[in-house]
């Protein structure tokens, strides 16, 4: 500041006041970090609490994926979950009564689950879809990235892996206690799974997953921005059909019909040294799961068109060609997920996806029969 009479530069008291006010306003946010974090508690106890389930809650969470996967035709919404930020609003009254909204800047897509039936409201499409039945394998969806749900799934897959206590942190205004799962399988890409939960209620509040390429950098993390341990009311959990909106019904078994049209052979009983995991009675033609825990992968049939487009997209995204006995194949590796696509063969398109080392999927794709039953 220059004095009104042209004297030496000095700060006027008014500027000092404005600077102090600005600093106070700016400091109000980070000051929340000075509040107490959760206590260090035995990791085994915390894992047991996650596995025991969580109380009803209502919360707003944000999930971020940094997996750098290429766009897969017809699966853009799925890859978006793993490569960008997803805002989720969850209302969970129990395992069979919940609603999870995927919030976008200009709309939302809400999934309701009531008594075994799912309803999907899509504002953009102005349509409510009623989905009956279920399949043993399905694609990831926003509801899976809800912190309690993601924690339950990942901790459930790693029950026998070692755990350790990690420092607590403050999440959504709650002092959370944390524990780390370190998967022991040498073939998995997952280096660590960190979970922070409310020590009083046992509700997981934040989950971080890091890959072995850089264990210090989480590549998938989801965290509550705000959460309340109040059960959602019945009106909130009831899907609404506004006047003029469309209403359609779908059967989860339709997916099996679509896969059947691909005329894919049954999955091999063993791939890359891993046994086929039985999927129960409701099998999906050509689909197979191999391995266990977080060292597993899935085999999914794909039309030749889709497989070829994935291969072309993968080449642009830095994919590596894999030598196969028939057709052509490409592998894309992200810090957490490895994808191998095989194409160039009529009715022989396949996708292999898993949290396993690239070498495992490369071996698996080489072992795949060209077509027909193995």
């Amino acid at each position, binding site marked *: *500041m220059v004095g009104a009479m042209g004297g030496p530069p000095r700060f006027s008291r*008014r500027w000092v006041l*404005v600077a102090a006010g600005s600093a106070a306003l700016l400091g109000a946010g980070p000051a929340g970090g000075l509040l107490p974090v959760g206590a260090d508690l035995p990791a085994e106890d915390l894992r047991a609490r996650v596995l025991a389930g969580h109380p009803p809650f209502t919360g707003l969470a944000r999930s971020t994926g940094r997996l750098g996967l290429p766009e897969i035709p017809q699966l853009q919404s799925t890859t978006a979950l793993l490569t960008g930020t997803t805002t989720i609003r969850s209302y969970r009254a129990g395992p069979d009564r919940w609603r999870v909204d995927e919030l976008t800047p*200009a709309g939302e897509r809400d999934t309701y689950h009531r008594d075994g039936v799912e309803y999907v409201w899509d504002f953009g499409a*102005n349509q409510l879809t009623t989905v009956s039945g279920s399949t043993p394998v399905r694609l990831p969806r926003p509801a899976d990235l809800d912190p309690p749900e993601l924690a339950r799934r990942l901790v459930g897959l790693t029950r026998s892996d070692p755990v350790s206590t990690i420092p607590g942190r403050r999440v959504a205004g709650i002092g959370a206690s944390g524990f780390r799962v370190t998967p022991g399988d040498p073939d998995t890409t997952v280096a660590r799974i960190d979970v922070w939960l409310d020590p009083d209620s046992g509700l997981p509040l934040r989950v971080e997953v890091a890959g072995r390429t850089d264990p210090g950098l989480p590549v998938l993390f989801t965290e509550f921005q705000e959460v309340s341990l109040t059960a959602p009311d019945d009106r909130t959990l009831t899907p609404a059909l506004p*006047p003029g909106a469309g209403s359609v019904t779908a059967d989860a078994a339709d997916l099996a019909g679509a896969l059947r049209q691909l005329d894919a052979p049954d999955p091999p009983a063993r791939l890359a040294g891993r046994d086929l995991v039985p999927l129960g009675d409701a099998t999906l033609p050509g689909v197979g799961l191999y391995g266990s825990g977080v060292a597993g992968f899935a085999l999914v049939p794909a039309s030749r068109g889709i497989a070829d487009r994935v291969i072309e997209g993968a080449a642009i995204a830095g994919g590596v060609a894999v030598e196969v006995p028939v057709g052509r194949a490409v592998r894309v590796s992200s810090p957490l997920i490895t994808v191998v696509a095989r194409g160039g063969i009529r009715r022989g398109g396949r996708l292999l996806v898993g949290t396993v080392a690239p070498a495992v999927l490369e071996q698996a794709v080489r072992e795949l029969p060209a077509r027909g039953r193995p």
Partner: protein
Amino acid sequence: MIGVELRLMLRRRRVWLCWILLCALPTLVAILLAATRLTPPPGSGGAFLSAVVTNGQIFPAAALALVLPVFLPITVAIVSGEAIAGEATAGTLRYLLVRPVGRLRLLTAKLISVAVYVLLAVLLVTVVSYVVGVLAFGFGPDASLGGGGGIPSLSGATLTPVDVVVRTGVTVGYLALCMLALGAIGLFFSTLTDSPLAATLGVLAVVVASAALTPLDAASAIQPYLPTTHWLAWIDLYRDPILWDSVHRGLLVEGGYVVVAFGAAWANFATKDVTS
């Protein structure tokens, strides 16, 4: 003083031109949509645009989303950038301050004038687009059942007419505050220079810089404090239940900008040598 400033603002042709242009863009969009029935596919285009053809009552929300990113900030930058610098350029600032009027009082009157401008701008866009929307697309499906009903929320549940009025009112107030934050920055810039154009461009530079940083992951630490980060929070008012979290954050940040920018304008203007 405040009355004088408001009368001056209302007498300016450029202010009326700004309001007319702000209302003209949504009107043009409504005419084109009504004539062609070609709405953007779901998920693309402006917010709510894909839904307006089924219910004209949604059009005010679509219109606000249309003018918010560019047109509204430009007009706010013009009006606020001119507040003090315009007086200096016209040579009236010296005479204004000769009168027994405190500088703080003059700045307050200018800020109130900008606040009234932004409130009327948002209100005019809302009212005009409601009328245009209903004329072009009707009251929605309920019209055939005996009268105009509500509108569908983003979550599917139908909002009653009372809900719509209340939520739209909150939206108007929220957007007016967002634009007032920009206006306060413009007022501050207007005290730094004698050129209204420079002050206006300064405000637009803030908007462009903020918009460029908002989607950048590397800027995540400062994103909550950027002025444009919270501009679309009002859309959460049309969810069911309302998502207040982002609106609350937006109110705090935009309110903070008003306080800090007005404080800076006061700190600078109170000791400034006025020579023109």
